[in-house]
């Protein structure tokens, strides 16, 4: 039995005539300890998929199973790193993490909680900024706080919704390594949603493209057979990497093309001509 399983999941928003089907017939299974990446265009329903898995949303039909049990609500077993960090701006870095830790360990005393907070803040290298508020931090630092907050709750599975989407290339690379480092330490199950194929290949064991919505559905999976730890610079010359990368991009491009050609609508240009203001 798979660790996380989605069976024939459909998700629609709205009712009656305004109904739009965002996700259609999603089937996915993830094994324990696996690192899976889902790649897709922006607006293809990735965040909806994440919210179905973490329990913020419930599918219209079909079921989401986590360790064989149906997901009906959020759970501390599944930690979430949100796309827009979602730190609480009135709390400091330490307080943001502390809030999560206290919920995850309601029975532990304060010194244990404080120790755990400083441990995880230290892990993401933010000890000097522990008393700062989110708005005093850079984007990369904020995302690290979000990572520390999610991991400090000791989830069995980490769900990341485009966690590095808003960051510059350099910070992005650093954080990718940090996340991989943390993941490899205790081999938690991880699900990464991203729009960057290279990021997916560098980090994941398997990549599954999400065909763009409405009626988004998962495409065929691509296994990444590159040994870990992966070296980013050497990766560019790796034949396997090139092959997988080209295959995925080709697949995604093809979907893009077919989406374009499938639209039969013709756009008529309005007949306008420049008006002379001189005469």
């Amino acid at each position, binding site marked *: 039995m798979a660790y996380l399983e989605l069976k024939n999941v459909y998700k629609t928003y709205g009712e009656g005539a305004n109904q739009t089907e965002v996700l259609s017939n999603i089937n996915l299974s993830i094994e324990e300890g696996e690192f899976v990446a889902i790649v897709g265009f922006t607006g293809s329903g990735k965040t909806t998929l994440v919210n179905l898995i*973490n329990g913020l949303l419930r599918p219209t039909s079909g079921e989401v199973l986590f360790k064989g049990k149906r997901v009906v609500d959020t759970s501390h077993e599944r930690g979430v790193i949100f796309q*827009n960090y*979602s730190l609480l*701006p009135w709390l400091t870095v330490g307080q943001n993490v502390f*809030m999560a830790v206290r919920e995850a360990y309601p029975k532990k005393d304060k010194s244990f909680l404080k120790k755990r907070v400083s441990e995880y803040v230290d892990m993401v290298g933010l000890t000097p900024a522990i008393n700062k508020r989110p708005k005093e931090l850079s984007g990369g630092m904020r995302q690290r706080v979000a990572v520390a907050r999610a991991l400090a709750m000791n989830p069995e599975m980490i769900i990341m919704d485009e966690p590095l989407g808003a960051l510059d290339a350099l910070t992005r690379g650093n954080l990718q390594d940090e996340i991989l480092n943390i993941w490899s330490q205790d081999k938690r199950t991880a699900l990464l949603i991203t729009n960057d194929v290279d990021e997916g290949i560098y980090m994941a064991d398997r990549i599954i493209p999400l065909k763009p919505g409405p009626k988004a559905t998962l495409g065929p999976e691509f296994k990444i057979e590159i040994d870990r730890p992966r070296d980013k610079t050497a990766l560019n010359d790796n034949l396997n990497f090139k092959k997988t990368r080209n295959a995925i991009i080709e697949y995604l491009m093809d979907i893009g093309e077919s989406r374009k050609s499938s639209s039969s609508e013709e756009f008529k240009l309005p007949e306008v001509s420049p008006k002379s203001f001189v005469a």
Partner: protein
Amino acid sequence: MGQEIILKQGQNSSFLKPLLLKLTSRFQKKSVLSSLKKTGITVLSILLFLGLWHLGSKALYNKEASFKIEKALTERGQAAADAERDCIASGESSCQPNTLPSPAQVWSSLQSLIADHKVITADKAAFSAKMADVNAKLIAKGKDAIVYTGRASFIDIVLTSIKTVFAGFLLALLIAVPIGIIIGLSPSLRSAFNWFIQVFKPVSPVVWYLLVFMIVKTLYIGDSTDNAFVISFISVGLCAMWATLVNTAMGVSSVDKDYINVAKVLKLGTFQKVFKVILPSSLPLIFTGLRITLSVAWMVLIAIELLAQSQGLGLFVWEEFQNGANDSNAKIIVAMFVIGIIGFLLDRLMLTVQNGVSFNKNEAV
């Protein structure tokens, strides 16, 4: 040695650094020039205002004076008109034209009000010294002490008004914030309360006063103590609370969805969710509401004190108007300025508190 001390001081006052920086930058040449310019413009505009006021009041004075002389002429003949003219020119208080007072008259009225305050304070002190023995005996016998019941001075009147406003504001806060939070959290309660808010929000202060009067009057039956203060502060509170109620409900119901998602993913309990996520994120809106409430409270206060006969600025203005003494108009204008300046200071106070509690939503993540 000296260096060491300086270093230590620097460490101790690290939290003062931003303040010091601000102060030192104030003294930089450029900002001195620009702030001089700013104060210059303000002073100039005040002088211009006083000048226009002076000219305007002079014109009104002349019009009123010539009307008086004209009237004397047509009704009682030339001799009476000349007498009237001489009387006005001599500055005799009995025949001064009654119109908008000039800035100088208002200023002297202010001084006479302050002098009056000193007299009354001395009076009070003398009274309590005289009655000390008698009161001690009365209290020993278990009777009420005799208190000073003379006329209130202008400063006492202002203090009564401020007290009334703060009592009303506090009442508004205690009613509007909890109800706002509750109806903000529950959409069904919100629609249940909506008609109530929409109907009562536009009701005039006068009507609120009458409603409160009906209720409090009955509650105070058999009690001889003065209930004017109670009636006026409750009316002020009820008039002013709507802005806070609506803003609190809106702030609580429109918390950023991201924060709600965080609360759900962390599985915060209801109490934690309300106090750690929803309330902090709606604080800026709540405080905007409270600021409006305070300024509305100060504005309706005058009308309500007038009706409730509470010894505050509203009653002062009304009594001066009824009084019609020579300097009554000047005293009314003094009260007008005092009301305006206190209102401005209250608003500043709330703004400072508001800036203290709010975080910048645009910059925050």
